[in-house]
């Protein structure tokens, strides 16, 4: 049996989910991707054609300035596949205190000019590595992934990324390879650092242990494997008000490839528009006001479980 609807759950708990000050603008540049990861909440992949246009990227950069955001968080799909990524970075770098690109790394060794641009603007790279086991990593991300990922890490380390003191951050994001949650981010970071150095001679800055969100390809896998209700109940059982207060939707705005606004990338995947209205980035004067309502769905259980995403990402139970 599934838990009650998330909105009902937090109402009955006497809690609220509403906006704080939006400091980050997350930009989803499209669903085209070189991989078809099993945990992808957007079902991105090589077959997807959705890509942010140059015009929309310019509108996004303008909104970034108008909204007074601090950081620009670029995701996809694989944002490296979008030819408008360099232009967006160049324009937004004038105003951004921080730019993050979320990447599976595999394409970066093939795009040295893009990496040079990243270096020039001190772009942070957050790279997804689900497991130290090649078999488990490839169960989620496809055959041949692990060796190519390590190769890409070596290349980036050679460029200064993930090397202490360089000022070029290469962070790892670890998503579980299945219907379970990771519990100890700090222990995992220690082990990944030690094992990646020992076995492969590569380094990184920080590790973030994330929770898989029951949407898209991962949601379909949960259903087909008979894990959906159990997984939702597990998330609901780990509900933590502190995680809810730190939920990313409170402090960011998410823009899809067409330029429409959402409270987070998961609502984007669900088509739940920010404020319940289909508003284009070009129509928004400012960042959303603190106290504004946030659209919710049952996938929100993932961000409110354990330590959620923004309290470091690990599940503390």
């Amino acid at each position, binding site marked *: 049996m599934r838990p009650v609807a998330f909105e009902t759950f937090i109402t009955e708990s006497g809690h609220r989910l509403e906006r704080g000050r939006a400091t980050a603008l997350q930009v989803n540049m499209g669903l085209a991707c070189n991989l078809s990861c099993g945990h992808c909440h957007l079902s991105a992949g090589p077959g997807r054609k959705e890509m942010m246009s140059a015009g929309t990227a310019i509108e996004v950069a303008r909104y970034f300035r108008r909204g007074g955001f601090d950081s620009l968080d670029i995701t996809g799909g694989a944002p490296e596949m979008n030819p408008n990524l360099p232009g967006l970075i160049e324009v937004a770098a004038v105003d951004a205190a921080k730019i993050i690109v979320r990447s599976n790394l595999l394409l970066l060794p093939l795009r040295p000019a893009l990496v040079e641009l990243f270096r020039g603007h001190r772009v942070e790279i957050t790279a997804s590595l689900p497991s130290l*086991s090649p078999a488990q990593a490839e169960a989620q991300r496809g055959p041949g992934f692990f060796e190519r990922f390590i190769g890409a890490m070596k290349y980036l380390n050679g460029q200064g990324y993930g090397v202490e003191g360089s000022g070029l951050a290469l962070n790892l994001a670890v998503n579980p*390879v299945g219907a379970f*949650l990771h*519990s*100890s981010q700090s*222990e995992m970071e220690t082990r990944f650092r030690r094992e990646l150095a020992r076995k492969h001679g590569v380094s990184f800055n920080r590790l973030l242990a994330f929770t898989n969100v029951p949407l898209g390809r991962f949601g379909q896998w949960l259903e087909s494997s008979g894990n959906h209700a159990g997984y939702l109940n597990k998330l609901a059982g780990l509900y933590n008000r502190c995680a809810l207060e730190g939920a990313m939707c409170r402090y960011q705005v998410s823009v899809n490839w067409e330029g429409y606004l959402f409270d987070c990338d998961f609502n984007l995947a669900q088509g739940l528009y920010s404020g319940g209205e289909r508003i284009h980035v070009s129509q928004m004067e400012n960042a959303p006001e603190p106290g504004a309502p946030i659209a919710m769905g049952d996938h929100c259980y993932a961000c409110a479980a354990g330590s959620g995403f923004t309290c470091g990402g690990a599940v503390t139970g």
Partner: protein
Amino acid sequence: METYYKPSDLPKFPDVGKDAPELAKKFFSYYQAVFAEGALTEREKSLIALAVAHAVQCPYCIDAYTQACLEKGSNMEEMTEALHVSVAIRGGASLVHGVQMRNTAEKISM
């Protein structure tokens, strides 16, 4: 189908304390302390627990510690090796008793 072991029974574990609450409290408190990080990490303790669970063939424990190992970041290679440690000790324990067999046989044989 009726069976002695049902996965839905695992969450009923605390019920065993209903008629001896003080003993249960002591046991669960001890149990929690055993699995807390100490000289060994929680991940290492979960791998030991998984191996022991196979040695004592407790399906509840196998279920619980398979999940715990994955949650704490262990991978299938590590978990399978832990299982083989259990298998090796169990097998070795049988095999080493062959010394008793040999002693007895030697004593009564010409």
